[in-house]
């Protein structure tokens, strides 16, 4: 630590810091445009010029390291004159039409101009205009407003890991562009909107729908992945207009994924159910809550409790999981599961109280070896991918074992791409790598493709057999909460053992009734065809959902409209094991109500005891008594294994078919809300292009890149075929969770492809 003086005040700071960092720490405001705490120093805007004692010219505070005894003046005549002059230059080409600019009112240029500029300009010639480019459905460009700070370019290169926007041309012709028309594809691209200090990059869906000063800013937690990013919802007239990140260094730093940013659009989709509705004589009618709940209670009471199965979304809150399982178990139905995508439950008893990533994101950024098994991490949890990228920039090595050669935004040291979806075999090979032995702070992370594999238990056991730490990249926003709250058939809240049917058994055994909480089985469940059939044949389906689907209107008997996360309060546990409470940011839409209230009243109508909660706090108190995460902190081990993996595979080797389907939920099909966010659906990640196989397999099957018939189980769908040579042999890549693929079977199962012959 050394001491410097800023505006006469003596402060101590870390050697090597820049003046601007020290000033920020001590609340001394220095104007800036190009400087951003999370990006490299460019020092190109010159707005942060300050006077340093003994130096004749003003110095840029962002690029001047401090020295012992340095005296800095940020408001001296020299500094102010310099700042004014820079401001005048910056405004030469910038349009002065703030009232028609979307950034007006929250513009750094506007603010700094007010605080540090002059009120007149000597410049009276023409201003330059720059042509706009379409860079995708999320970001609107108005490049005439650009002041060339290059924050967006540096963000792309340094954080997103995709150099898409660049600094083209030079001098007066300089512009920020992709040059060749193309869209920006990073999963974190929306952050460019936030860091753009002017109105050059603005949010396309939000643009011109409200003014910054009219919005109220309300904090909440993003509910699309196990990161649990902190966000602010900007609300006006009880409507979320946009979402921006809230700085939390240990979780999302200052970034959020596009999924967390733009999913709010789904809140206002026409699929939202705004009134309770029941199906009588095969006709849907809107009814009041009392009638709907009585109808549901009657239906449930008419069925033997043991014949009821319950499916919950892994993104529901702790309170919802807790009340749902309590209701169903009190009723006498022990069959509850949230593991919608899992196929192998054989080692569920070995699981810890709740599965976690098992490292903090900060530790992950420091890890020396990270092995990703069965994960397209940049699409599953974009913020985790960003942390892995940080680790690679820190000279960490990433090893990848995947069934598809997914592209990553970080450097991969070694990869094993499984043929025929045999992740176990590829993992065995990878574990022989010398990097595994050398790892000091190594971590193996199992992603969706590993956890949802029919041989997941073997893969987990094999991964647990190394000295490296083992962590799970669970799906949904609150898998950890689901486990802890007892939304698994074999455990009560707090991990007490019990028994019940898992999701696969529930679907195989054709229960008489199903209760759904936030689940759209034809999209969310691994074997969507089987789920659809089971629900269709059931006597009764009670959907406690925010949205309806066409299929739901066929199989359901009651739809109890509950609020999405934005309109309710609750708690979720993220992948780092942090329980995060959040509050509603708007009132519920229409007649919809928070699920905890619906479950409470339903329990009362069923005359079940112990549901006399008045407030959510009452529920939380009871949850805390039974299973507060702090009370049950585990040993840090993800599997309590007493078998060796070799034995495991010998015991239960799953024979994978010759031609296997690899599926997985695409980034913008993860849950009901994001599937309905229209702008995200228009991105390249949201557009379904067809079923993919490589040229070898296509030739073997006699297929040409046209329409093909795809068959799994008894369901046949017709869709385009894409020949893609990054797909390994023996593999058909066809994502799930999409309207185009709903009704087909599970991943890692047999799939048939057949050419459609035009007559």
């Amino acid at each position, binding site marked *: 630590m050394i001491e410097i003086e800023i505006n006469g005040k003596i402060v101590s700071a870390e050697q090597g810091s820049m003046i601007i960092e020290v000033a920020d720490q001590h609340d001394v405001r220095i104007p800036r445009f190009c400087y951003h705490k999370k990006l490299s120093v460019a020092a190109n805007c010159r707005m942060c010029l300050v006077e340093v004692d003994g130096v004749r010219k003003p110095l840029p505070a962002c690029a001047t390291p401090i020295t012992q005894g340095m005296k800095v003046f940020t408001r001296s005549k020299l500094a102010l004159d310099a700042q004014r002059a820079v401001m005048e230059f910056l405004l030469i080409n910038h349009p002065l039409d703030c009232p028609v600019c979307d950034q007006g009112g929250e513009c750094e240029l506007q603010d700094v101009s007010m605080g540090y500029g002059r009120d007149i300009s000597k410049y009276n010639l023409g201003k330059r205009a720059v042509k706009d480019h379409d860079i995708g459905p999320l970001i609107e460009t108005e490049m005439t407003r650009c002041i060339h700070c290059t924050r967006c370019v540096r963000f792309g290169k340094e954080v997103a890991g995709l*150099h898409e*926007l*660049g600094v083209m*041309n*030079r*001098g007066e012709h300089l512009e920020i562009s*992709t*040059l*060749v*028309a193309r869209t920006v594809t990073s999963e974190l691209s929306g952050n460019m909107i936030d860091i753009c200090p002017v109105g050059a990059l603005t949010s396309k869906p939000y643009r011109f729908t409200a003014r910054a000063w009219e919005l109220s800013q309300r904090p909440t937690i993003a509910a699309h992945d196990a990161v649990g990013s902190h966000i602010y919802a900007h609300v006006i007239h009880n409507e979320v207009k946009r979402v921006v990140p809230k700085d939390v260094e240990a979780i999302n730093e200052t970034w959020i994924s596009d999924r967390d940013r733009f999913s709010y659009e789904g809140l206002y989709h026409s699929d939202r159910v705004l009134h309770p509705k029941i199906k009588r004589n095969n006709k849907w009618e809107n009814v009041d809550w009392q009638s709907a709940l009585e109808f549901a209670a009657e239906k449930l009471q008419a069925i033997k409790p043991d014949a009821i199965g319950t499916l919950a979304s892994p993104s529901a809150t702790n309170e919802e999981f807790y009340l749902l399982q309590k209701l169903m178990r009190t009723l006498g139905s022990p069959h509850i599961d949230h593991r919608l995508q899992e196929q192998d439950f054989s080692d569920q008893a070995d699981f810890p109280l709740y599965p976690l990533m098992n490292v903090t994101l900060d530790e992950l950024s420091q890890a020396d070896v990270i092995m990703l098994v069965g994960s397209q991490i940049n699409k599953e949890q974009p913020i985790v991918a960003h942390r892995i990228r940080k680790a690679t920039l820190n000279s960490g090595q990433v090893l990848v074992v995947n069934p598809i050669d997914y592209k990553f935004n970080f450097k991969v040291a070694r990869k094993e791409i499984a043929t025929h979806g045999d992740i176990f075999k590829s993992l065995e090979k990878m574990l022989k790598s010398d990097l595994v032995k050398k790892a000091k702070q190594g971590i193996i992370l199992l992603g969706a493709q590993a956890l949802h594999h029919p041989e997941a238990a073997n893969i987990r056991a094999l991964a647990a057999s190394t000295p490296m730490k083992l962590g799970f990249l669970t799906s949904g926003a609150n898998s950890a909460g689901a486990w802890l709250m007892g939304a698994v058939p074999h455990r009560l809240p707090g991990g007490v053992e019990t028994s019940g049917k898992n999701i696969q058994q529930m679907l195989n055994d054709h229960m008489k009734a199903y209760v759904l909480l936030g689940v759209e089985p034809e999209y969310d469940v691994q074997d969507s065809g089987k789920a659809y059939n089971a629900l269709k044949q059931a006597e009764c389906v009670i959907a406690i959902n925010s949205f309806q689907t066409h299929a739901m209107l066929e199989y359901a008997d009651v739809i109890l409209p509950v609020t999405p996360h934005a309109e309710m309060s609750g708690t979720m546990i993220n992948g780092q094991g942090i329980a995060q409470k959040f509050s509603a940011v708007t009132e519920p839409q229409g007649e919809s109500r928070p699920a905890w209230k619906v479950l409470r009243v339903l329990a009362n109508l069923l005359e079940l005891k112990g549901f006399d909660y008045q407030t959510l706090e009452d529920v939380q108190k009871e949850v805390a008594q039974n299973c507060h995460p702090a009370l049950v902190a585990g040993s840090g081990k993800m599997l309590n294994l007493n078998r060796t993996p070799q034995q495991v595979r010998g015991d239960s080797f799953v024979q994978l078919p010759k031609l296997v389907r690899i599926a997985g939920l695409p980034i913008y099909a993860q849950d009901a809300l994001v599937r309905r966010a229209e702008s995200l659906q228009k991105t390249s990640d949201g557009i379904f292009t067809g079923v993919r196989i490589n040229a070898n397999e296509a030739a073997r099957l006699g297929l040409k890149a046209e329409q093909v018939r795809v068959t799994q189980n008894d369901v046949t769908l017709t869709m385009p075929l894409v020949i893609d040579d990054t797909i390994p042999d023996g593999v058909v890549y066809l994502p799930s969770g999409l309207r185009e693929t709903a009704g087909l079977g599970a991943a890692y199962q047999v799939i048939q492809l057949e050419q459609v012959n035009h007559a």
Partner: protein
Amino acid sequence: MDMNTTFNLTHNMRTDIDVWVAKFPAEQKSSATIAALSIVQKEQGWLSDAMMNAVADYLEMPKSAVYEVATFYSMFNLKPTGKYRIDVCTNVSCMLCGCDKIVEQLENRLGINLGETTQDQRFTLKEVECLAACGGAPAMQIAGHYYEHLTPEKVDIIISEWEKKA
């Protein structure tokens, strides 16, 4: 430019680029960008998007990074040019010495504006930054030949000479 057009670097281009790549550390292939672009332009006369993409792929770097370099330097032609390229300097020294008149004379004589090519595809007129000939301002270069201390009359004579060559 059609995004789907691809361009394959010829064997000779690759060999020439490899010479430059070898001069830099293995991790910094991108250092050879300028050389690689020059090599491609020398054979093709200009740089299309597809050609720049081919260079990006060959040097294993982001396409945007190649575009940044190609658009920065006025020596790279991002559009097909005429047979002879006239680079006229409009930087400070030349401007003070009257380059406006030189530009005007060139435009009138050739019947084109800055950045355009004559209809007979003989001349492309380009405004460039400093030619490092301030001592002889105003200056221009035609197909690599320098002309200094220009006057509108001199420009006429020079253009006539080049027209005879064409």
